[in-house]
């Protein structure tokens, strides 16, 4: 590799050709403040916070986009640079809704942190603020333009990572606002509710629709039997909000925490993930053996589902008809569980804790009430749960280990790995293999489909049948796979698509990392590895071995794809337009 040597603050630094000055400084442990920078996603030199002096240059240069050159002399910390950064930051603050203590991002705000670090003590240039716009029509995402600093990290994520591109700068100059086209609401455009924009936002301009009040109310209602399910990815992320390391495993703290909040029963979405495998695995075999529509594409990820409905409606028939584990859980809870426990299903209130904002939308879909009621009443994100726990004074890190409740709290490692990209595929393969061959699978770890590579492909020998599988996470990767399917270039039998990068561990409802931390830590990988560790620690690691699932079929559903299964566990999809129809 060609190397380039430059001097930063008198220090010689050698970096590969094509690196930026910011990267070179990072390598030399010289900290340059940034705001719009999001490594690999948003490197556009817009916010002017990372400016540096370069010998021979007329104006200050944005280091995040400035390529290094041999012999370049850079000063990151001159009075002119510091003053410029301060003025820029004061200007941003002068146009920012400074309601910090009541902001959802209080103490986790990059603007706030930067103000502290740069020693901003007053704003020399106060003035008019841009027009506030507040969009809370979406069931998943709230946009508060009064806090937006126009860094465009959300725009780049939406366009580049997710290939959705429903938000962009509108208008110009002081009136510029990041919004859907024509200032429409997110609810009106082809937004998939993934919440990756929230994950990218350095401030409180984007946040999840807060549904905690509904849960507090239900918990306080003595008439209600309030039960909760927690998604696989929560057990490797909730701890982060309580000072545990990134990806810390808190599986056994979860039941303790949720019981202390007042839930009547604490269940696990891993259970219904196992159930999903039973249905989806059977569906796959049926399509494979009976000439059904292939490739079969997984349907666990509600962001992906809505994406398919908007952008690839011609592939809707390829989607598995299985509901997501969240919705299967709700449907079973208000039928099977209600019957078993003798509880009036109208009194059952199902809360789900999800790493996901799209789950809020999914729970509200009109077709998701096959139990006769809304199957899942409220879907909370990891962040909302963390806020509730903090409000209740419950510190997850200090709780004893406890177990999930029976019967909907029993799960296998296969259910757990739903939380990472490739996990659904792997779980399905574990079951499909044994069902088809009737033999025990000795090496159950399909490492070919693991990891943060955007698209993973493998050919698996299932009892003599070669099954071509593909796994994509992040919708721009999904686009590539789908385009290859459409063009006939690829011959897949089974595809797993997860909307969010890294799968659910990287979901839009998860704890938010700063740009700086994201640069140093691949949170998708760290949390993903934790998920596989959870799997390894489980006694049972194949969905069809889940005794509670077996009992469910025996007592209630009959067999996979039975009529009852179809009624409760399967769904249908709707083509959706790209723009509101007028």
């Amino acid at each position, binding site marked *: 590799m060609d190397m380039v040597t430059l001097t930063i603050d008198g220090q010689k630094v050698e970096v590969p050709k094509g690196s930026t000055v910011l990267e070179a400084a990072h390598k030399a442990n010289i900290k340059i403040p940034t705001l719009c920078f999001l490594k690999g996603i948003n490197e556009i*030199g*817009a916010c*002017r916070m990372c400016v540096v002096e370069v010998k021979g240059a007329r104006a200050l240069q944005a280091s995040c986009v400035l390529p290094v050159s041999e012999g370049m002399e850079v000063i990151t910390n001159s009075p002119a640079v510091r003053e410029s950064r301060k003025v820029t930051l004061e*200007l941003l603050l002068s146009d920012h809704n400074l309601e910090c203590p009541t902001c959802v991002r209080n103490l986790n705000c990059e603007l706030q942190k930067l103000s502290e670090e740069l020693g901003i003590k007053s704003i020399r240039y106060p003035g008019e603020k841009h027009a506030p716009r507040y969009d809370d029509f979406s069931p998943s995402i709230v946009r508060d333009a009064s806090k937006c600093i126009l860094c465009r990290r959300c725009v780049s994520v939406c366009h580049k990572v997710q290939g959705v591109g429903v938000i962009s700068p509108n208008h110009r*100059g002081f009136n510029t606002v990041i919004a859907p086209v024509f200032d429409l609401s997110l609810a009106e455009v082809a937004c998939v509710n993934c919440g990756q924009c929230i994950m990218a936002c350095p401030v409180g301009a984007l946040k999840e629709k807060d549904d905690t009040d509904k849960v507090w109310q239900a918990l306080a209602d003595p008439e209600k039997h309030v039960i909760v399910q927690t998604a696989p990815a929560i057990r490797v992320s909730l701890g982060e909000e309580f000072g545990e390391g990134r990806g810390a495993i808190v599986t056994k703290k979860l039941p303790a925490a949720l019981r202390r909040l007042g839930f009547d029963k604490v269940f696990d979405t891993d259970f219904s993930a196992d159930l999903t495998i039973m249905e989806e695995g059977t569906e796959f075999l049926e399509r494979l053996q009976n000439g059904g529509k292939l490739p079969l594409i997984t349907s666990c990820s509600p962001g992906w589902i809505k994406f398919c409905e908007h952008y690839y409606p011609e592939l809707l028939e390829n989607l598995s008809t299985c509901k997501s584990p969240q919705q299967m859980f709700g449907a079973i809870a208000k039928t099977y569980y209600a019957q078993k426990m003798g509880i009036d299903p109208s009194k059952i209130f199902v809360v789900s804790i999800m790493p996901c904002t799209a789950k809020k939308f999914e729970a509200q879909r009109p077709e998701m009430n096959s139990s006769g009621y809304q199957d899942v009443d409220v879907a909370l994100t990891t962040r909302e749960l963390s806020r509730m726990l903090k409000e209740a004074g419950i510190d997850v890190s200090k709780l004893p280990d406890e177990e999930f409740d029976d019967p909907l709290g029993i799960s296998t490692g296969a259910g757990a790995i739903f939380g990472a990209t490739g996990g659904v595929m792997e779980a399905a393969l574990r079951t499909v293999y044994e069902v088809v061959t009737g033999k025990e699978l000795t090496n159950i770890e399909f490492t070919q489909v693991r990891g943060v590579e955007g698209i993973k492909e493998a050919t698996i020998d299932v009892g003599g049948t070669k099954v071509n599988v593909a796994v994509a996470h992040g919708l721009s990767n999904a686009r590539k796979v789908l385009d290859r399917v459409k063009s006939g270039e690829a011959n897949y039998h089974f595809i797993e698509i997860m909307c969010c990068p890294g799968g659910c561990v990287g979901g839009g409802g998860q704890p938010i990392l700063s740009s700086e931390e994201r640069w140093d830590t691949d949170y998708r990988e760290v949390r993903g590895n934790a998920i596989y560790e959870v799997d390894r620690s489980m006694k049972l690691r194949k969905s069809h071995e889940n005794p509670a699932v077996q009992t469910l079929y025996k007592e209630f559903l009959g067999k996979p794809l039975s009529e009852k299964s179809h009624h409760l566990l399967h769904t249908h999809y709707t083509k959706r337009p790209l723009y509101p129809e007028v």
Partner: protein
Amino acid sequence: MEIYRAHVLVCKGTGCTASGSENVMEAFQKEIEKRGLSKEVRVVQTGCLGLCELGPNVLIYPEGSYYCRVKAEDIPEIVEEHLVKGRIVERLLYKEHLTEERLRSLTDIDFYKKQKRIALRNCGLINPEVIEEYIANDGYKALAKVLTQMKPQEVIDEVKKSGLRGRGGGGFPTGNKWQFAANAKGDIKYVVCNADEGDPGAFMDRSVLEGDPHSVLEAMEIAGYAIGAQEGYIYVRAEYPIAVKRLEIAINQARERGLLGKNILGTGFNFDIFLRLGSGAFVCGEETALLASVEGRRGEPRPRPPFPANEGLWGKPTIINNVETYANIPPIILNGSDWFASIGTERSKGTKVFAVGGKINNTGLVEIPMGTTLREVIYEIGGGIPNGKKFKAVQTGGPSGGCIPASLLDMPIEYDTLVQAGSMMGSGGMIVMDEDNCMVDIAKFFLTFTQDESCGKCPPCRIGTKRMLEILERITNGEGKEGDIELLENLAKSIKASALCGLGQTAPNPVLSTIRYFRDEYEAHIKEKRCPAGACKALIHYEVMADKCRGCGLCVKVCPTGAISGERKQPHVIDQEKCIKCNSCFDRCPFGAIKKA
């Protein structure tokens, strides 16, 4: 070929078209037909002659008689007198402002005498919609020379040696730009013409496109040959319909004659040109924003490097030059770099076109050799300041430029001198201000423009210019505070250093230059709550001077709010509550009895 004894040249540029040259042209054609002169006199539509304010302009050759403000009803007289009887129609001739003399020939007019027209060489002379007329004036000869006698590197060397610098604003050496693009690796390269003329009042690019579109096409082809490109794009604003139409005609005519497209002039060189219409955002004149817009994205600048010469249109090596820059290329190739370099000054070669406006007698387009002084442009070419008012400042370089005071009038016009004076060449806007102009108000005017045209991408420009404008607004409203000037200076300095693109980096110039030269005016506004020029409404009021008022009542009649009252033949009074400071009474009073205070 038919020979005519006289040619009637009717200006059909945007200015003259707006003042009715279409009718004038038709009237000439009808009248000449009626008189049976069709085989003797030819009526030709041309591009801009420069003195737009006096349009519709008509030039009759062989005498070179320059008729101004010609109306359709004047035509029978012109035809009868001038074209039949050979007697010049004196009353319609151009009149010098200073001497009041009616001049018989274009070449006698001060406005033209000091000019040297290279970029505008064909404007007002040929019919821009007829390619033969361009060819007859050495058109496409430079292209032929380049394709048959020169290697690409020789073309670049010639442009380098000429010393030509970009006429769009930055003044970057054109030859170097071409060299970078020629050196850049890649099979696909592009040539782009920046015709997104956005400075308020500047219209030289429009005039070239309307009056001599082939000169730009020819130059782009030469550039394409020099850097190894096969495609060119002209980014022109949709608000220039005549320019767009003439470009379309020119492109089609050039294609038909094998001067554009495949195998040009049988040499095997392929090059084609396409139009892209912009919607008029000022920032799209910035090259990276322009490229984004051509590609169909939001017109926003991006940081450089990479420069377009390496990564431009669709990521390919691209040169972007402005219209006027291109218009200089064919003469440089034909007459040689030495000829071009002999015009102008050491570091600024050739000529520059200025759009002169504001408080000046001859408003219009002038092309002068670099190094001409501001005084020569304003007084000798421009005819001085109207109504005997005193010159205060001249603003050059459009909204990104600065204001130059009277003390620097003898400064030669060059890229570097203008920058030293706190202004810039820019695209060549030149707005003259007299004693009635408040310099704080002027700074506010330009900042309002840039603030409005900011793309909104970087905070220094998006918020910083807004804050500067707010401070200027409070100063002109009489609410200025001690320390506001320093606040402005500090903010301006910071924005200049940290804004992402040229628009933001230069936006504070009008403020900085007016503070530099007219600080006393700022201080009068802030400390004394007084506008010395009497322009800031919030700081003036109108009074009747009782000793001068004769009580004639004229002011009462013109006052739109009924704020003036008084007995006949008695001194009147103005009700300050009702007065909206419209200045009507001041203008109307025959005795000078109204005073602004």
